[in-house]
């Protein structure tokens, strides 16, 4: 019986983690603690993680303004959130190198892609998809978390806290849950495939046959390069530069993260305060309107049922009172509009803070990516010539298939 429950639990976990065939599985995040490693893991058990800069939902400037945000803010958040996830994953001690990557990087052991669906001071909603180097989808989930003003107050003592930390913890724990399902042999295979994918992307004519795809579309290693394969050694040297480049870009993102953290936290907190005040006032407006309407209806009822002087007085009082209540609700509505304007102003103000930093970071990333593209073109040329010199393969044939993969910065 216990076994039955265990299997049922495992099946439900599997469905929850791998339910990706028909869109993301939705999760509302509850308070969650990240699971930290209780000891240093062996190198063989570690997988590197590459977190892509998140996608953002297409939104017009006008629509963004209505939501008290801005496309520029969304762009900045699309870098801030992956960077905080990177830090969360690092701090669990369950993973190898964790990097935020500027573009699709399939040559990393575990690739994390995400989409920012909603983000403000009250609610964060993201879509996360995890795929390993072999092409196996770990999970495709949508996470939503809501916070209150108390959540921000609790962070006053923690200088570096994030109100949505539970969401990050939940993602980290779900990744860990999947990784714990796969054995060391599979982990080793993922790492080998990642390395050979990189080799294939740089020197396709030398490593085209080292990987094969099975019927499910999963990549497998068909053969390994020799230990003393000079081309493989060169590829590893270039891969080290790839890591250097990404780490440099991570410096930029880290810089953006540091610069954003304080104004971003303030923006989110102020946003929630203004939103709550606006909601409170709107609630009052509706209460008064209903109360005023009830008074006027009551006056009408009294007027139709009573012809006495007292009844007439009561009717007049109710009419005047109801009218005054409704009129005062208009004033409160105006106050609410002030808060609404303040919300928009907050967005404009935060955008003004973050836009220069974002532009600088993006400019430098683009410039460096351009240099990397040029370097890769040169390295590819040299490797092609080396390959030809060492094997006798004609240059024209060696050149085949050397175009960069779409979506790559190289």
């Amino acid at each position, binding site marked *: 019986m216990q076994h039955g429950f265990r299997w049922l639990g495992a099946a439900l976990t599997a469905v929850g983690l791998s339910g990706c065939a028909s869109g993301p599985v939705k999760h509302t995040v509850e308070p969650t603690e990240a699971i930290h490693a209780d000891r240093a893991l062996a190198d063989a058990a570690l997988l590197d993680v590459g977190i892509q800069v998140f996608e953002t939902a297409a939104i017009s400037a006008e629509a963004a303004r209505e939501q008290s945000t801005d496309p520029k803010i969304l762009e900045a958040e699309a870098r801030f959130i992956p960077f905080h996830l990177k830090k969360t994953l690092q701090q669990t001690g*369950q993973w190898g190198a964790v*990097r935020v990557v500027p573009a699709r990087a399939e040559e990393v052991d575990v690739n994390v892609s995400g989409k920012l669906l909603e983000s403000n001071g009250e609610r964060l909603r993201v879509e996360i998809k995890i795929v390993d180097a072999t092409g196996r989808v770990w999970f495709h989930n949508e996470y939503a978390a809501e916070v209150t003003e108390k959540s921000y107050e609790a962070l006053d003592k*923690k200088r570096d806290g994030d109100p949505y*930390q539970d969401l990050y913890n939940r993602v980290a724990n779900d990744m860990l849950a999947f990784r714990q399902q796969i054995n060391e042999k599979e982990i080793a295979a993922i790492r080998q495939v990642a390395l050979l994918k990189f080799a294939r992307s740089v020197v396709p004519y030398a490593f085209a046959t080292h990987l094969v795809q099975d019927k499910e579309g999963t990549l497998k290693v068909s053969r390994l390069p020799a230990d003393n394969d000079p081309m493989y050694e060169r590829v590893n040297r270039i891969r080290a530069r790839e890591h250097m480049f990404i780490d440099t870009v991570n*410096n930029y993102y880290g810089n953006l993260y540091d*610069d954003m953290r304080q104004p971003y936290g303030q923006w989110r907190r102020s946003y929630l305060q203004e939103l709550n005040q606006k909601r409170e006032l709107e609630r009052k407006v509706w209460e008064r309107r209903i109360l005023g309407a009830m008074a006027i209806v009551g006056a009408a009822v009294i007027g139709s049922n009573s012809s006495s002087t007292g009844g007439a007085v009561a009717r007049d009082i109710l009419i005047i009172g109801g009218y005054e209540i409704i009129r005062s609700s208009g004033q409160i509505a105006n106050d609410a509009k002030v808060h609404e304007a303040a919300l928009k102003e907050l967005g404009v103000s935060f955008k003004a803070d973050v836009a220069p930093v974002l532009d600088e970071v993006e400019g430098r990333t683009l410039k*460096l990516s351009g240099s990397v593209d040029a370097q890769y073109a*040169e390295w590819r040329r040299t490797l092609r010539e080396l390959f030809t010199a060492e094997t006798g*393969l004609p240059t024209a044939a060696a050149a085949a298939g050397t175009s960069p993969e779409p979506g790559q910065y190289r």
Partner: protein
Amino acid sequence: MHIKRLLDRSQYLSETPRAGGGHSRIVCGSFHNRAHYKHALHYAAALLLWLAAAATPGHADPRSDLAQARHDLAISEQVLARVTERVEIARSDPATGPEQRRHLDEYVVRVREMVVSNRERVRILSHTVDTAPGGGAPAMPGDGKAPLAATQAEEIAALETRLGVSLADFDQLLLEEARRARTRGTIGGSGFPGGSGGAAAAERPSKGAAAGSKAPDATHSGSGTGAAQRSAGEPGSQGGRIEGGDPGSAGATAARPPDVGDGSDDDVVARQIRKLAESEPDPALREKLWDEYRRYKQGTKG
């Protein structure tokens, strides 16, 4: 391979037009009369004698073998070019299934191995001819080319050098980026991360290098994300190797490793790498440049 070549040659000889016209059908013909049969036997005997002579090392002429090996190499290269071209066309055809693609790839690999084998044979024979007494002259006089093995080794060494210099240039570019990042001002006053952990950690293996991330700083708790933490080990998930070090304080030759010598026998490229290493203030990157220098020197010696 040698036997196959001889067999191919025997096939060729067996089908060579004779003076009397027609072909002597030793291999796949039919014998019309006894005279023809006898005639064929004579040729077969002569062929066997030739084969025996050709197969005897003592009678082999290294120069002619080298010429033949070069001929074989040229043919195999042409075959590889043709096969590769056809395979590329087949691969671009959507109708080609994954299994067929795999077979095609395997076939290309086999042909490529044949080319490599022929190259090796040419290299060995060239060496034999060059080192044989009185055999210093090129095997194919008048072709105006240096011995192939030397040409190939030089070409590979030159390309290795080009790659090494390009990698060193790239390292320098990233170093400059890291320096610029360190001097950058910030709007939040949190300061730019001091350590270019990633760049500094250049060629450490990724998994091993991940130690920095797998053992979180003991002072970190919850979701700590402060700049102070980053300067201690962030960003760059490989951990900050140069934390605590003052990049600007390193002297130009303060950390020259003892095994790199004085550089008196350096060529232009080695001098360039040495100069970069000596002027590099970042100890981790400097060590990497010295590694590059050692690797280059090793290559030029080999």
